[in-house]
């Protein structure tokens, strides 16, 4: 049964998504429990699969029973197992959170909301487990189509942002597909492991280089890497509050994961470290993204837009860590990816909560939550500390390992970029904290009004997760180092 788990993890949310319109036709109230049950089952399954991977080694799943180079292969190894766990748990917590805020934000399209969310989650799990370049494209498209629809679900202004997202996202997918086409033309295979065996003798080929550039460019649009980030702030700002917390942590991070898979598994660590300067290019782009994203965040007045730019900056940090080419940097990058997903979820939880209770959209209005929303304020402090990188939060240890890796690699530009991004992050959080704690207010005190139970539970759980990730960072990084590393990384 264990060897069937990858398919089961994908099928559970997929079945639920497909059935959702029919359930919604009978009774809309059943949609939410069914969706939550599906995501809970998925979470439990993915945890048990990861436990299996750690004790028995990776699972390779051949669809329809056709052996890998010819058939479609899914890989559940230490890295994808970890990511699947992250995706399913975050999805469960976010859907729990979004319950009370959902109907108002999306104009009563309840069955559609749950269908699209579950479809998004199953597609993301498909990207994570795919061991085949074309499968990554297919699920990337499914996930993107679901995200476009989710962003535009509330209608009005969001439709324009969703349309921009659609145009740019489709361009990204087309570039990626073009790159896959070049690879297929040269190597004659789509399976990542098979591509890796064929590539070393084909590196002189210009088609391989062109394909690689197209693939990286396509994924860079999907992960909103500066300067291709134009779609993200508008899309995340205008998307309904019940939807941003699920898009922000998962969609861009899974695109980063797809890039990791392609660079280190399809091309192979040896190729990208020694033969092709792709790691250098991506890490420079990451350094630019980390600084520019944080700099742009500094000048924002809308809360959701500010957090969106913060996310852009953190994608840069993850890329810096991963592209150092040594084990510490890689583990740090992956650990920071997980942390960043949790932090993004909490940030958009906060943005949703302050709007839900007080109608606050701008940073200056945050004075109104002082003394009113203790849970939200506590979560804001914790996530702020983690975004800046202060122990004992997870964000600190992620940055710590990235900097250690950069020092090992002798890459002082990367160290400087991480530190500069940290200072800029500190600056924009000081701005937020100033309004929450210090700015004098003339507004009459309302009676304290906290958010409803499910929202409180989700926010508390993820804020606790930030601190727990910091406390167990040693163990998590050891797990990554032992089970999730690509072959051939420098120690």
């Amino acid at each position, binding site marked *: 049964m264990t060897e*069937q788990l990858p*398919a089961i993890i994908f*099928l559970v949310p997929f079945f639920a998504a497909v059935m959702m319109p029919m359930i919604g036709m009978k009774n809309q109230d059943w949609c939410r429990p069914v969706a939550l049950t599906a995501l809970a089952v998925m979470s439990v399954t993915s945890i048990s699969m990861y436990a299996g991977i750690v004790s028995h080694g990776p699972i390779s799943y*051949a669809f*329809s*029973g056709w052996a890998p180079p010819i058939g479609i292969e899914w890989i559940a190894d230490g890295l994808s197992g970890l990511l699947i766990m992250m995706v399913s748990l975050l999805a469960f917590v976010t859907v729990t959170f979004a319950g009370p805020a959902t109907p108002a934000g999306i104009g009563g399209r309840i069955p559609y909301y749950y269908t699209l969310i579950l479809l998004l989650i199953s597609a993301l799990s498909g990207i994570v487990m795919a061991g085949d370049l074309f499968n990554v494209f297919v699920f990337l498209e499914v996930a993107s189509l679901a995200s476009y629809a989710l962003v535009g679900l509330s209608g009005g202004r969001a439709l324009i942002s969703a349309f921009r997202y659609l145009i740019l996202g489709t361009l990204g997918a087309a570039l990626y597909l073009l790159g896959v086409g070049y690879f297929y033309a040269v190597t004659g295979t789509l399976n990542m492991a098979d591509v890796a065996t064929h590539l070393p003798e084909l590196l002189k080929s210009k088609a391989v280089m062109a394909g690689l550039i197209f693939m990286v460019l396509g994924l860079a649009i999907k992960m909103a890497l500066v300067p291709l980030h134009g779609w993200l702030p508008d899309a995340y700002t205008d998307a309904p509050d019940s939807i941003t917390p699920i898009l922000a942590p998962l969609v861009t991070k899974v695109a980063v994961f797809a890039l990791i898979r392609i660079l280190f598994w399809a091309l192979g660590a040896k190729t990208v470290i020694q033969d092709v300067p792709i790691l250098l290019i991506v890490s420079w782009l990451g350094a630019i993204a980390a600084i520019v994203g944080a700099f742009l965040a500094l000048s924002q007045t809308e809360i959701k837009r500010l957090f969106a730019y913060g996310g852009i900056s953190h994608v840069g940090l993850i890329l810096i860590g991963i592209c150092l080419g040594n084990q510490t940097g890689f583990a740090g990058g992956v650990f920071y990816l997980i942390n960043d997903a949790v932090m993004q979820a909490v940030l958009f939880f906060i943005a949703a909560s302050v709007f839900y209770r007080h109608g606050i959209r701008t940073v200056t209005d945050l004075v109104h939550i002082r003394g009113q929303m203790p849970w939200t304020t506590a979560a804001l402090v914790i996530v702020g500390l983690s975004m800046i990188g202060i122990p004992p939060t997870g964000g600190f240890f992620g940055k710590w390992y990235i900097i250690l890796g950069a020092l090992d690699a002798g890459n002082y530009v990367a160290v400087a970029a991480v530190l500069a991004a940290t200072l800029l992050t500190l600056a924009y959080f000081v701005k937020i904290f100033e309004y929450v704690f210090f700015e004098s207010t003339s507004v009459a005190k309302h009676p304290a009004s906290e958010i409803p139970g499910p929202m409180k539970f989700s926010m508390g759980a993820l804020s606790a997760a930030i601190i727990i990730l910091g406390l167990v960072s040693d163990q998590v990084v050891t797990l990554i180092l032992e089970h999730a590393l690509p072959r051939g990384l420098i120690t």
Partner: protein
Amino acid sequence: MIYAHDSLIVQTLSRFIIPLIQLFGFYVLFFGQYGPGGGFVGGVIIGTSLIFGVLVFGLDPSRSAMVNRVLHGDGLGLLIFAGVGGLCLIGGGEFLNYADLQIPGMELATRRYFGILLTQIGVATDVAVTAISIVMSLSLTEKNEEPNGPNH
């Protein structure tokens, strides 16, 4: 809302043509395992015949409860597809490995044949329903009436 075409010639001719298109669609669907074709193409052809019918004979969604049901039934085809795949899982094989479909008294080749056919029927259903539901959604939004769900 789409009104019926008022030409008698068009209406009479389409009465002949639509069944022919559908027959061809089913042929492509069933022939798909041995030659060019399959669920997707067959579904597109069947969907086209349905759209043709809607354009010629008109459609008033407010009168027909079935239309609303169809709009929510997009997933039925996918459910058939994933369901047959899931049955293979229960039989102990990989997803969509038809050799492990547990149908008593059937040879391996026949099991594979029926497995592929069933999943292709699922795909065809989904493609046809999606095609027709796109047309219906567009014809509904013209009246500023969105297919929001059953309770609206």
